């Protein structure tokens, strides 16, 4: 009976999710519905439901999960401080003569943003708004340019510091300990979020490299898909190089501060994220002097709204474990 319930819960939840109600409340509502069916048919103890608040509580107080709002805050802050715009413009000009140069610079800007923020949605939208019109104006094929933007925008998931890895790290350390206990092994070592970050760094960079290579090869063999473009008339190439370096400096400093402190074990991910957020506040206040408070307010609002997404994760995980 319990098996049938579990399978039908899975199937009906999938259908209900497609209906389009908020994911968090669909999942919780469905699991509670099936829990009550289970109580009626006697395959589920009512007492399990009593542990629900006890399971929510650690999720709002765990130190490692405090890194999530901090990374989101940092990401939104960087997005609003227009670092991506400058970087993209400078790099696009610099790599223009290379075959597929603009596409490659989109990939690199995406990777830099991913390494400094760790959230996905914002970067995809920003990159799309910024680079798609430019790419189309330079006669890039729409398929190739939107593909490059989507791929580079989602790099935030893989390249640390990534919020998905923070949540996964929390989950996996529990699973790891439970697995060791159930096998009767001694508890040797733990999986920390820092370990996951270190592990994800190289694969992420390989992915960036592969994307760039793909665009380069495509543009090399089919130049009409991604036509190259000579440097604008007037200033010497050194001007573009200088501009690119200046635009790259702030994100790279942030990356070194955040990732460096986390990977070297100097700071926990939460503290690293707080430092990064502080750096981002500084950068943004440096770039936008007027209406600063107003912007900060809209950034806070955007952040707390984005947190809704992670809440979904938090509360649902509970229900299904119960």
């Amino acid at each position: 009976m319990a098996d049938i319930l579990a399978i039908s819960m899975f199937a009906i939840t999938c259908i209900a999710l497609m209906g389009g109600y908020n994911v968090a409340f669909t999942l919780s509502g469905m699991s509670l519905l099936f829990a009550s069916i289970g109580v009626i048919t006697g395959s589920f103890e009512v007492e399990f439901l009593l542990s629900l608040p006890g399971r929510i509580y650690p999720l709002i107080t765990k130190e490692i999960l405090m890194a999530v709002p901090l990374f989101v805050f940092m990401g939104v802050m960087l997005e609003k401080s227009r670092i991506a715009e400058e970087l993209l413009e400078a790099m696009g000009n610099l790599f223009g003569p290379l075959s597929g140069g603009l596409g490659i610079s989109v990939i690199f800007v995406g990777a830099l943003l991913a390494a400094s923020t760790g959230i996905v949605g914002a970067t995809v939208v920003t990159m799309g708004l910024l680079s798609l019109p430019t790419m189309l104006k330079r006669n890039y094929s729409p398929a190739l340019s939107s593909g490059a933007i989507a791929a580079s925008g989602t790099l935030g998931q893989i390249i640390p510091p990534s919020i998905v890895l923070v949540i996964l790290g929390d989950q996996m350390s529990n699973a790891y300990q439970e697995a060791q206990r159930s096998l009767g092994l001694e508890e040797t070592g733990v999986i920390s979020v820092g370990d996951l970050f270190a592990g994800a760094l190289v694969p992420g960079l390989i992915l960036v490299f592969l994307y760039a290579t793909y665009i380069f090869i495509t543009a090399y063999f089919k130049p009409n898909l991604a036509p190259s473009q000579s440097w604008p008339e007037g200033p010497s190439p050194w001007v573009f190089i200088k501009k690119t370096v200046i635009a790259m400096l702030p994100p790279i400093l942030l990356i070194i501060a955040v990732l460096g402190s986390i990977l070297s074990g100097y700071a926990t991910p939460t503290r690293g994220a707080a430092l990064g957020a502080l750096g981002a506040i500084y950068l943004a206040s440096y770039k936008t002097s007027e209406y600063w408070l107003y912007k900060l307010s809209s950034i806070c609002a955007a952040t707390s709204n984005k947190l809704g997404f992670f809440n979904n994760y938090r509360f649902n995980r509970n229900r299904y474990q119960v």
Partner: protein
Amino acid sequence: MVFISTQEKSQLNNMIGNTDLIFILSHIFQLLGWVFSPFLVLPIMYFLFSKNQFLKSLSFGIVSTIDTFNYYIGEIVKWLLPLMVLTISFSIFALSIFGKSWTKLFETSEYFHASVIMLGAASTLLAGKHVRVDIFYSKMNNISRSLVEIIGFYSLPIILWNSQSFVRSSWMILEGSSEIDGIKGEFLLKTLIPIFSVLMIIQGLSISLRAVMYILRHEKPLLPLNFDDTFINENSFK
């Protein structure tokens, strides 16, 4: 109905004196919950008796009150985010420069975090920013979207119901931090859980009432003023 045994109660009695007061208070809150629970069927009643003037004005008032309330809560709570950044950074600097570990300061940021997460959720719901799978939803017309909103509403009260003994026992011993020099206010953090569910329930009520108003083509109250780009006006029902 009361999830605390007499034996447990006597144990708690030994720890601290004022358990009776909190026991009575918790029953008062429970009673309030029973008094207000009929409001949960208001969307259905409104849908069935759409001609009733009293129901119409009642739900209009309820929706505008709830929305304004949750909007301002969200507006206040969002300022805890930069505060959280500042407190954590400050505790890092205190540790690395002055060599002082300041547990209380770090725990303050924990309180900020919990408050942002739990109290901001309802205003996120108001802004329609919770994640949806919109493969079909984006193609639906407004009527079926509104129906989805109404059907989806009836799932939250269980957390509220279950958190009562959890919170009550924490209040009875006025639970402090697990750190030695931490803040002695863990019971306040636990109280956030029922507050969260109450806020979510009333916001869900408001949204489903809005959906009914849309279906009936009645006039809807305006969303709170002073929106910026994150509060896209009525994006769920357009």
